C-alpha cells in the first residue's frame, strides 16, 4: 500500500471511530489529521499548559484524535500485513481496498461478495493489543487506552463462531 492510500485509510477509519468515541472532536479532525500526516511524531507531543499570550484560565483536556490516528495507523499496518499474507498473489493496489473491507462500515452485508475473510478472534485480540500498545506508548490514560482499543476493535468485522 502506498502512503497516500494508507493515509486515506487511516483518516477514514479514524474519523469513523472518532465519531463514535469522541464526536466532540470532529471539528478539529481535518486539521489534526493533516498535521499528523505531515509529521506524525511531532503531532503526538501534545502541548501542555497555556500559551503566554493565550486565555490563561482554561484547563487542558485530553484530545483522543492524535492517539487515535496513531493507533489506527499501527492497526492498518498490521491488517495490511495480514491481508498480504492471505492474498499474496494479488497486486498491492488492491490491498488497501481489502483492508478497508475488514471494517464493518465498508463491508458488504452479503458476506459472499467480500474478497477478504473477516478477522478471527485471535487476530482481533492482536489488533486490540496493538492499539493498546501504541496508546500506552503515547502515555494515554488506561481508561482512554481501553476505550480507544475497544472502539477500533469494535469497528472491525469478526468471523462468527
Amino acid at each position: 500500500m502506498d502512503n497516500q492510500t494508507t493515509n486515506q485509510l487511516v483518516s477514514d477509519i479514524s474519523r469513523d471511530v472518532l465519531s463514535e468515541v469522541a464526536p466532540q472532536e470532529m471539528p478539529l479532525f481535518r486539521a489534526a489529521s493533516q498535521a499528523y500526516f505531515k509529521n506524525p511524531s511531532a503531532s503526538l507531543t501534545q502541548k501542555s499548559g497555556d500559551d503566554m499570550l493565550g486565555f490563561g484560565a482554561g484547563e487542558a483536556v485530553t484530545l483522543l484524535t492524535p492517539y487515535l490516528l496513531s493507533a489506527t495507523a499501527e492497526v492498518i499496518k498490521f491488517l495490511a500485513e495480514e491481508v498480504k499474507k492471505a492474498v499474496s498473489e494479488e497486486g498491492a493496489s488492491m490491498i488497501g481496498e481489502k483492508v478497508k473491507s475488514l471494517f464493518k462500515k465498508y463491508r458488504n452485508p452479503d458476506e459472499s461478495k467480500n474478497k477478504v475473510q473477516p478477522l478471527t478472534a485471535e487476530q482481533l485480540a492482536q489488533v486490540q493489543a496493538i492499539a493498546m500498545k501504541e496508546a500506552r506508548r503515547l502515555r494515554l490514560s488506561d481508561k482512554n487506552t481501553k476505550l480507544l482499543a475497544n472502539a477500533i476493535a469494535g469497528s472491525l468485522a469478526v468471523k462468527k463462531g
Partner: protein
Amino acid sequence: MRRLNPFLFPSDTDFRFVLLVVAIVAASITVFNSLQVDIFTSSWLKMTVDCIEKSKLAHPDDLTLQLQFEKQCRDRYELLQSGWILLGIAILLSVATLIYWLTPRWLVWRRKLSPFTAEDDPQIASSLDELCREAGLARAPIFLSDPLNPNVGGLAFGRIGRRYVALNGGLLAQFHIDPARFRAIARHELAHLKNNDVDKTYFAVAASLAFALVALIPLGVSLIDDVFFGPDLGFGFNLVWRAIAIAGYVYLALAGLLRTREVYADVRASIWDGESGALREILSKPAGANWLSFLGFHPDPAYRLRSFDEPQRLFRLSYWDAFAAGVASTLAFPDLNALFDLLLDSQYESLTPYGASILFAPMMAGVLGLSAWRSVYLARIQGAKPQGIGRLGAALGLGMILGLWLALRSAVPYLDYDSFTGWLVPSLFLFFWAILLIVGLFFLAKWVAAGAVIWLETTRSAKSLRRAYAFTIFLTAAIMTICVGFWYFFWFQGYEGVYMIVSLGGGLVSVVNRIIGSPYAFWIFLSLWAYPLSARFWRRSEIVVENAYLENDSPALKLQPSESTRIGLAVAIGVVSAILAVALMAIIRLGVRFSVAEATYTDLIWKDGYLKSQIALAILFELGAAFIASVWIKRAGWAHGLLAAFVAGGLTTLGFVSLVELGDCFSIFSLGGVGGCADLFDPSLIGLIGSYMVNWGMFLSIPVAVTASKIASWFRQ
C-alpha cells in the same frame, strides 16, 4: 448594581504599553550611551589631544581662536558619538518592527495552524460569525485551528491589517459539549481585537525581544569586559547590578502589560457574555493564591474575578504603576542629557535638561492626568471624595528619583569626596531636592484632580469627556516640562554646581527672585487658577455620560453638578483689594511728596527702599484678597483665592505704574522721576513691577489660599 464601564478612559493596557515602550527606549539610551563610552573613550581622549595640538598650530597666538578651533574639531567627533546612540535606537526599533511584522507568520508556521472553515463544522463557523457581529468588529479575523493543542483556550494575534484568532483543539472540542463555555472563551479572544490590544501586545513583546538582542547582549559582553578586565572592579559591579535591575524592570513592565490586557479582555467579553455567564464561571474556578503572580504573564485568578465583578477597581491606578512610570520617565535623563550635550552647541548647555523633560513629560502628565480623572470620575459617581491622588504623585516622584539612580551613567562616581562632611553637604542637597520633587508632584497631582472635579461638569458625552481629560494632560505636560526640566537642571548640577550658580547669580535671593519673576513662573501661576475655574465657561446644567455602564441596555449616566464656581466674586474681591492698595499707595506717595525733603526721596537708596515697601504693600493686599476669597467661597476656594490675588496683583501693578507715570505729568505725584506724559504706561515698567507684584504675590498666595480654604472647609464641616 450596574458595573461601571472602564473603557470610557484609556485603559491600563494603553498605559502599560506606553510605559514599556518608554522604558525600553529609555533603557536603550542608557545602554547605548554606556556602550558608546566604552568604545569611544580612548579614541575620544586621543582625538581631544589631537584637536588641542591642531588648534595650537592653527592659532598659536590667539587663545580664543584656539578654543573655537578645538571645539569645532571635537564637534565632528561628538556628532559621531551621538550618532552611535541614535543609530542604536533606530536599529532596536527596526528589529522590534521586523519581529512584530513576522510574528504572525512565525506563529502560523510554528504551531502548524490551518484555517478553520465551515467544512470543519458549519455550526461552529456560523457561531463564530455571530460572535464577530456581536463584538462589532470592523473586520472579522481569520479563524485558525490549532488542533493538537489540548488547552481550552485560544489566541488572538496578528499585525495591522491582518488579525487571526487561533482556536485550540481543546476549545473546539468544547463546542458540542458546552457551547456556552466555547462562546465565552471565543468572546474573550475577540475582546482582545475589540480592545485593540493585539498590536500593542505583540509590539511590546517584539520590542522586549529586540531590547534583549540589540541592547542587553552587547551590554553583557561589555560588562564582562568591565568586571573581569577593567581597571575598577567596583565600577564594573556598579554597572552590572544596574543592568540587571534595568533588565528586570523591562521584564516586569512587559509582564504587567500582558496581565492587564487579559483583565480588560475579560471585562469587555463580559458585556457580551453577561455578568453571570459562562466566562464568570470559568474565572471563578478556585485557584491557589500565588504571591509571585506579579512575575507571571497571566493575572492572579482571584484578581481576575474581582475585576470582572467590580470593574470600578480598574479606575484606580496603583502606586506601583505610578512608581514604575516614574522610573521609566527618568531612566534616560542622565544619558539624554549627555546626548543633547553632544548634539547641541555648548551655548545651549543649560537647555539640555529640558530636552529630556520635553520627551518624557507627556508620559508623566498622562499618568497624573489620567489617574486623577479616573479617580475623580469614580468618586463622583460613588458620591465620595477622590482618594490617594496626591500619593500617586508622590509615588511617581519616588520612581523618578530611583530612575535617575538606576541609569547606567549614574554608576560613574560624580566626585571623589575626601571627607564625610564633604560628602554630607552635597548629599543633603540632593536629598532636599528629591523631597522637593516628591512634595511638588504630590501637590501637582492634587491640583490636577481638583481641576478634574470641576471640568467633569462640562461633560455632555464620552467625546467631551475625552476632550476634557486630553486638555488636562496637555496642560499638565506643559507645566511638567518646565518644572521637571528646571528641577533636573539643578539636580544635575549638584551641590557644587548650584553653589557656583548662586554665587555667580548674586546670591540666593537674587537667583530665587529671577526664577519667581520669570515669564515661565507667571504662566504656571496663572494656570493654577485658570485651569480649574475656566471650566465654568463650558459648564452644563447636567452631567451626562453615555456608555457609563457596561451593560448594553443601560441608560446614560446623569448627575447634577455641584455648586457653581464664583469667578465674579473672586474678581470683585481682587478689584476691591487693588483699589484699596492703590489708594493707600497714592496716600503714601502724596504723603512722601509733601512731608519728605526732595533730596531724600530723590536719593537712589531711599527710592529702592520705597519701591520695595510698595511691592510689599501690594503683596500684602494680594494675600488679603487670597485669604478672603479662599474662606468666603466654598467650592475650590483656593483657586478663587489665587484668582483674587492675581486680579489684585495685576490691577495694583497698573495702579502703581499709573502713579509713577502720573508723577511725570503732575508734579504732586512726582518723586523726582524722569520722563514725560507721552510715555504713559511704559510696558517694560509694567513688566518689571509686575514680575514682583504679580508673580511674588501669586507665589506667596499659594500657601495662604490653600491653607485658608482647607481650614474654612473644616469649619464648615
